[in-house]
């Protein structure tokens, strides 16, 4: 595929992704920070829904031989160290690398600083990469769980999706999303707003 057509496809896919992030509210700092403080479960629900959907689509495409899987290498030390830093950054930014751009599009000014900080972080890693790779490991097998179980990928992916659907139904029963949107649909639920919402949600039968 030429670079130009890849860029055009990328912009089109990004617009769809940006719409979905905005509509699902997961780009809101209140939703991200609320999730990490375990007071708001919208992010987890949207995230698990996307994983389940992706698993079903990939099970079909891979099972019928249309696409190959592209799993990442299993570099456990790098995954743990990087994951901890990434998670800390996500909480303090109130965004992840992708949703930072959605925040900019939606008009949050602090997201511009997250973006610039992110560019510096990526640059710092580029300079440090030749030193870090010998410490954290360069290559490893690209293991997926079904390799251990000895079953085809599609079977494991459909099983994961089925489990996630059950988890999602339970989560939504326990924490209905309407109670966690906030008055301005930004996941901002301080004590005043919370009381307003509990009055409202009483009108919607569970």
């Amino acid at each position: 595929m030429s670079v130009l057509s890849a860029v055009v496809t990328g912009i089109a896919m990004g617009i769809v992704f940006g719409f979905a992030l905005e509509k699902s509210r997961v780009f809101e700092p209140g939703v991200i920070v609320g999730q990490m403080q375990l007071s708001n479960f919208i992010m987890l629900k949207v995230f698990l829904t996307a994983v389940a959907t992706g698993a079903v689509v990939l099970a079909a495409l891979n099972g019928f031989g249309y696409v190959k899987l592209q799993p990442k290498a299993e570099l456990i030390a790098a995954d743990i160290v990087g994951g901890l830093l990434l998670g800390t950054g996500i909480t303090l930014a109130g965004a992840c690398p992708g949703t930072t751009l959605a925040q900019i599009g939606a008009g949050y000014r602090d997201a511009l600083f997250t973006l610039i900080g992110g560019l510096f972080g990526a640059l710092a890693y580029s300079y440090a990469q030749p030193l870090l790779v010998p410490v954290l490991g360069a290559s490893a097998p690209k293991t997926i769980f079904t390799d251990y179980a000895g079953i085809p990928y599609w079977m494991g992916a459909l099983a994961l999706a089925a489990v996630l659907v059950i988890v999602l139904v339970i989560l939504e029963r326990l924490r209905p999303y309407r109670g966690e949107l906030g008055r301005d649909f930004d996941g901002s639920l301080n004590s005043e707003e919370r009381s307003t919402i509990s009055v409202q949600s009483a009108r919607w039968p569970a």
Partner: protein
Amino acid sequence: MAETALGASSSYVTVADWIVSWADPQLLKIDYAAKHVALTAKNWWQVALVGGIAIGAFLSMKLSGARRAAISPIWKRALGTASPMKRYALAFNAGFLMLLGARIADGCTSGHGLSGLAQLSVGSTVAVAAMFAGGILAANLLLRRI
């Protein structure tokens, strides 16, 4: 687009290294930088994708008629201050940590989270568990309750 999975964080490397390579051409002697800056469909597709996310969110917001303050009201409660400069400084540092971590782990919420978990990747599952652990610890130790 079968040669690559969804991701967002490596586009930060492509853009940052591409800009800085003008001032410091030595940067491209590092294979990692050269590989990310190269004019390939995969690299620039992802840059276009994150640019598209900003356009998509902007259009979605405009069409719904919603408006947002420059800084989300949760930050005043989380930080105990309404100072925009303090929030901007924290956002810059948070962005730095986020991308440094994402590049060490070789993926972010999209690459490890969405693409990795859906592919049942063992490494991605570890990365996502660490990401939530770091996020939950930071939210409870460093921020006030929103």
